[in-house]
């Protein structure tokens, strides 16, 4: 067998174009290199690591071949191959081989790019699609993303063409989503619905039940209503307030006094007000709320500001501060659909147990809620004007009268419908001319480029045919718009290999920084070609970052880069983490977003990814982090105390939560996250049949002890020496991001003294085994805790910068970092270094880079 193998490898090397090495000039003989040092393990029989060099093709057209050679190159370049234990080839030989390989791969990749460009053609992601429709139609509250199937991912992002498949399902849903959007955009009434203002008091049935069930008390001013006796709730027939001294008939729909609540509601007892939105639209909502501390039947001052919320089914209308004994009136603007109700939730006061008579803990009072709306800035709404301009709205003529569709009045109690309103529709004396005018305005925005008359004409033809087929003008126009919204020109990012056209560049920018399509200004400088000028591009990037739409970039990028989209996937165990409330989870995500926003705004250094002397906190987060002096819902910049183990994304609640499972933490999971997202490493999947660790909350063993066994195995240790260390440092933080020195246990351990704040019972959990955060970096340097790890990382800002630049590049361009991009990336790192590795500057660097400006 041997000679055959040799021959093959030899032939392979010749093909590889290693002629440049010259067999003679390379010490040890280059063609002999692989056969001498590699094929012992990497042949057809042993196939170590799944690699058989004797069978590895040199036909780079074949899928996977190029990638495998890149891997060979990288392992050798990193000095990992040939392995340290085996005979080492002379260094020059390795260097020469690497050089040859590098040139060949580079050439191959450049050729590929010339033909196809770096980035594959791709459709919009579902986030981009929804935003695009919201912006195009000026429907800021439109929800169509959930109609679409989940997007695929590659290299951690959903922005890559290779992962954004198109299928019948997709197309089917695009048809449905476009229809929904157009329907939402269309107005069918001549006059706006009257706006109404209503004041609601906490007096509907569920509030009565809260009072009755020991979840709340009736207040008068800032005191307990003396008529209301706090008694242990008992099941009473006929739902009477007997024990409380208040008659239900006096309360329901007539009470105007505040109600204090000491427990959150579950879905079966949502504290709803007596309200149903009369129309779909935007509403102004005001609420008066405050908090108190109930100390054995006395309403006293609370030691912090609580947070209340108003919800409409599962949509948040707003969070509101509830300061101690000081009613505060706050306001928010929110969208409600017709029939939507409003409910009150005590976000920071959740798990009180036991009866109210004995309760010692915080509560939140609500005085009233005011709803005003629907609010319409103009009529017909902007969305309608985009589709139909100023075409007059008329009641259908006598002929069509019989076909007139009555308006649906969803959510309105049967029997209480208002007089059926006739659906008006747009009319025109010159329908095709109007269609042409409207489409000529709409299509360039939807397609993000100038649109020729001929192209507009084809869409006008759709209108003409629909009209000829007996459909009314509104429907006929909608048919054309719907066609445009299912067209490749809308759904796909169109780019030609080479330098991007101005319009394509504008689209790329908009998809990156707004997760949407360009606005008129950006489209204009794109179409005119101005955008190709570096200074114009710079001005536009600045403008875009300052625009509120840039928040979408922050959300979408962090969702993917840091995996924050998984934040809701686990709910922390209630016995182990009684202090966790869903509101805290929202705050965590807001913290990370606000932090990234701060890095962008202040153009701060890249070391802030892992370290920093400030954090973006609100009251709940500060309490979780053990930092005093921060109160209420608003997130603000807070200086961290000296010696704090917090700082950077890596110790933020959201990150610590998405890297845990709700019950336990694993250094492997957190380590893998850290390596991939912060250090920019690619980790191989675990080999088959490795078994898995069964987490233990009985306090018997720690995860570290369990892993030790694993790590003693040399074949496991090779990877885990790299993966685990950052995870060890982060063991100092529990599954919700609280700091710990001992693991919480539900079995053996030291009982915990003190009470859970929002209740009156001692926690269920005990203090289990001690946490050990020490570790060793792969290069052998030890660290004792996360701050020492931090110091090691911030000493190498190039590494952090290279990672952030890579992540941003993949997200911005929709392409992985290819072999041939490495030099360009290295240049970006150097440029970035010369500017002090600052985050906002990095955005500009990327926007100006050749990688971003070419397909």
């Amino acid at each position, binding site marked *: 067998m041997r000679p055959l193998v040799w021959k093959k490898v030899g032939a392979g090397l010749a093909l590889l174009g290693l002629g440049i090495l010259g067999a003679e000039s390379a010490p040890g003989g280059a063609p002999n290199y692989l056969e001498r040092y590699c094929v012992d393990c990497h042949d057809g029989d042993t196939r170590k690591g799944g690699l058989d060099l004797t069978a590895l093709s040199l036909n780079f057209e074949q899928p996977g071949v190029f990638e495998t050679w890149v891997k060979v190159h990288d392992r050798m370049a990193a000095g990992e191959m040939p392995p340290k234990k085996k005979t080492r080839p002379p260094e020059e030989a390795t260097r020469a081989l690497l050089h040859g390989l590098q040139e060949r791969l580079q050439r191959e990749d450049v050729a590929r790019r010339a033909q196809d460009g770096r980035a594959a053609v791709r459709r919009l992601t579902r986030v981009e699609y929804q935003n695009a429709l919201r912006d195009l139609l000026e429907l800021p509250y439109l929800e169509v993303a959930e109609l679409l199937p*989940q997007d*695929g991912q590659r290299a951690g992002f959903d922005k890559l063409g290779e992962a954004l498949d*198109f299928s019948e399902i997709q197309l089917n849903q695009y048809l449905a989503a476009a229809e929904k959007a157009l329907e939402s955009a269309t107005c069918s009434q001549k006059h706006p619905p009257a706006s109404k203002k209503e004041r609601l008091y906490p007096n509907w049935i569920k509030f009565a039940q809260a009072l009755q069930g020991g979840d709340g008390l009736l207040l008068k001013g800032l005191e307990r209503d003396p008529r209301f006796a706090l008694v242990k709730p008992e099941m009473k027939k006929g739902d009477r307030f007997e024990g409380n001294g208040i008659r239900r008939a006096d309360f329901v729909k007539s009470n105007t006094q505040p109600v204090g609540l000491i427990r959150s509601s579950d879905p079966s007892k949502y504290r709803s007000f007596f309200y149903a939105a009369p129309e779909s639209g935007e509403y102004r909502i005001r609420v008066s709320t405050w908090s108190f501390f109930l100390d054995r039947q006395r309403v006293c001052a609370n030691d912090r500001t609580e947070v209340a919320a108003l919800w409409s089914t599962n949509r948040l209308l707003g969070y509101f501060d509830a300061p101690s004994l000081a009613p505060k009136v706050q306001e928010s603007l929110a969208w409600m659909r017709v029939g939507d109700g409003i409910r009150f939730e005590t976000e920071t006061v959740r798990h009180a147990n036991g009866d109210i008579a004995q309760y010692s803990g915080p509560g939140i009072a609500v005085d009233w809620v005011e709803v005003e709306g629907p609010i319409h800035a103009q009529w017909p709404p902007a969305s309608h004007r985009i589709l139909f301009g100023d075409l007059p709205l008329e009641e259908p003529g006598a002929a069509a009268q019989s076909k007139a569709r009555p308006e649906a009045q969803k959510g309105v109690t049967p029997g209480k419908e208002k007089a059926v309103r006739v659906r008006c529709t747009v009319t025109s004396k010159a329908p095709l001319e109007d269609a042409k005018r409207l489409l000529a305005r709409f299509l360039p925005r939807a397609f993000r480029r100038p649109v020729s008359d001929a192209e507009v004409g084809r869409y006008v033809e759709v209108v003409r045919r629909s009209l000829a087929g007996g459909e009314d003008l509104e429907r006929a126009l909608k048919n054309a718009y719907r066609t445009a919204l*299912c067209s*490749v020109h809308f759904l796909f990012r169109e780019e030609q290999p080479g330098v991007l056209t101005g319009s394509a560049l504008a689209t790329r920018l908009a998809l990156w920084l707004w997760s949407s399509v360009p606005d008129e200004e950006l489209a204009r400088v794109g179409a005119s070609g101005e955008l190709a000028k570096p200074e114009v591009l710079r001005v536009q990037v600045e403008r875009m970052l300052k625009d509120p739409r840039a928040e979408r970039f922050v959300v979408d990028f962090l969702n993917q880069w840091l995996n924050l989209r998984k934040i809701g996937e*686990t709910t922390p165990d209630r016995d182990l983490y009684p202090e966790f409330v869903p509101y805290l989870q929202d705050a965590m995500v807001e913290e990370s977003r606000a932090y990234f926003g701060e890095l962008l705004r202040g153009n701060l250094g890249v070391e802030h990814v892992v370290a920093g002397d400030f954090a973006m906190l609100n009251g709940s987060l500060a309490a979780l982090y053990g930092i005093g002096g921060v109160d209420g819902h608003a997130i603000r910049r807070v200086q961290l105390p000296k010696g704090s183990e917090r700082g950077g994304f890596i110790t933020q609640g959201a990150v610590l939560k998405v890297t845990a499972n709700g019950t336990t933490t694993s250094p492997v999971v957190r380590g893998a996250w850290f390596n991939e997202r912060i250090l920019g490493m690619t980790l191989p999947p675990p080999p088959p049949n490795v078994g898995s660790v069964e987490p233990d909350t009985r306090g018997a063993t720690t995860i570290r002890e369990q892993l030790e066994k694993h790590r003693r195995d040399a074949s496991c240790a090779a990877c885990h020496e790299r993966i685990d260390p950052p995870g060890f440092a982060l063991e100092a933080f529990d599954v919700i991001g609280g700091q710990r020195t001992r693991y919480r246990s539900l079995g053996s351990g030291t009982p915990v003294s003190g009470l859970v704040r929002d209740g009156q019972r001692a926690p269920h959990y005990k203090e289990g085994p001690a946490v050990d955060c020490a570790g060793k970096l792969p290069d052998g340097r030890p660290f004792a805790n996360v701050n020492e790890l931090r110091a090691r990382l911030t000493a190498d800002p190039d590494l952090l910068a290279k990672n952030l630049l890579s992540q941003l590049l993949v997200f911005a361009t929709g392409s992985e970092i290819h072999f041939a991009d490495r030099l360009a990336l290295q240049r970006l790192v150097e440029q970035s270094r010369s500017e002090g590795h600052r985050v906002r500057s990095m955005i500009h660097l990327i926007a100006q880079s050749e990688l971003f400006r070419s397909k």
Partner: protein
Amino acid sequence: MSISRLVTSGPAALSRRGFLRAAGIGVGLPWLEALVPRSARGAVSGRAPNRMVCVMTNMSMIPQNFFPKKAGPDYEATPYLEILKEHRAHFTVCSGLSHPGVDGAHLTEKCFLSGAPHPGASHFRNTISMDQLAAERMGRETRFPSLVLLAGKRDLGLPSVSRAGVSIPPESDPVALYRKLFVQGSAAEVAERMADLRRGRSVLDFVREEASGLRREMGARDKERMEQYFTSIREMEGSLQAAEAWEKRPKPGADFREPKEGPDEVHVEEQTDLFYRLVRMALATDSTRVVSLYLGPLMITPKIAGVTTQTHGLTHHGGNAEKLDQLARIESAQFRCLERFLAGLRSTGEGGRSLLDQTQVLYGSNLGNANSHDTTNLPILLAGGGYKHGQHLMFDRVNNTPLANLFVNMLQGFGMEVSRFASSTGTLRGLEVRA
């Protein structure tokens, strides 16, 4: 009993619903004939059709409550199998099965029926799932090539995967499902739906032509990617045509009334039961022959006696006895639902051939052990479909047998000539068709 006596059409068949409701489902009615007006039926071939139901729960099962220790027909019933004891002769329990290389904890949900390896890898691409392969073969012979259903809550990709590698969005509203299957609507509504289907076809005509021009300007790789777009258009044109044809035919009736609203998702047992009833009805009326049902109670705190914690938290029980107890309550409820489903299938049918005999029911989970997120040794059960059942097929716990082997059996049982699927190495040893 003479079949012809019960063959009716249109309104007469619907009026029979009252009778069927009164009679219940236990009397072995000639279901297909009674419930399906002739004109509503697909091109049903002479012999009784094959059907397939795949049920996956995403919360695993406590291994010791499910897996028997002993192999063969004399296995001792474990707590969960005890719930199914009435049907012991009608199912096979399997151990030592998994999908090789399918790792990544919850991410493996979308691979349960496809067997595509490493869903967490950055270059992962899913492949067609077994149920959808079967649905492809059915084409549009039935009103719905397949039903993909979700009882519960989940926003991860689900295991029914199209040929293009896309997880099919599930129907999770039982009332909407009922309407889709059994409610015709007024003439005006039908006309509006027809008009909309035609509008859809006009859109497709237009965008196909428009995109053809674009293709000429693209590089080879992009051209290849754009093929997906054209394939989608072609497929969807076919679907819209078929939908139009089906829209013209009356829908079958069901033997129970349209539910006012679906049970709240926390009422896991009631909700699952309702879905199972709808599945049984969909099969009985030959509205479809392929159903996939996902049970996703993971993010819910089910309203089940003794359960106070969200399911996901319970699955990470860390060995805690109280949590294991609560977890077992949820899993038992799921088995009670399965029990009632199997009973329903068994009592539907006639002439000694029950609907269960004609339906392969796969029941399992993508996790072998939720506490460790282990994706090997998956709990798997196969009921009905005309196999020799009543046994425990035990395979190696360390070197698992590919679950795809069982899928090959099932596809063959569905009448397809396949010898391989995903990572299969053959068919499942010991699983035989009843003569």
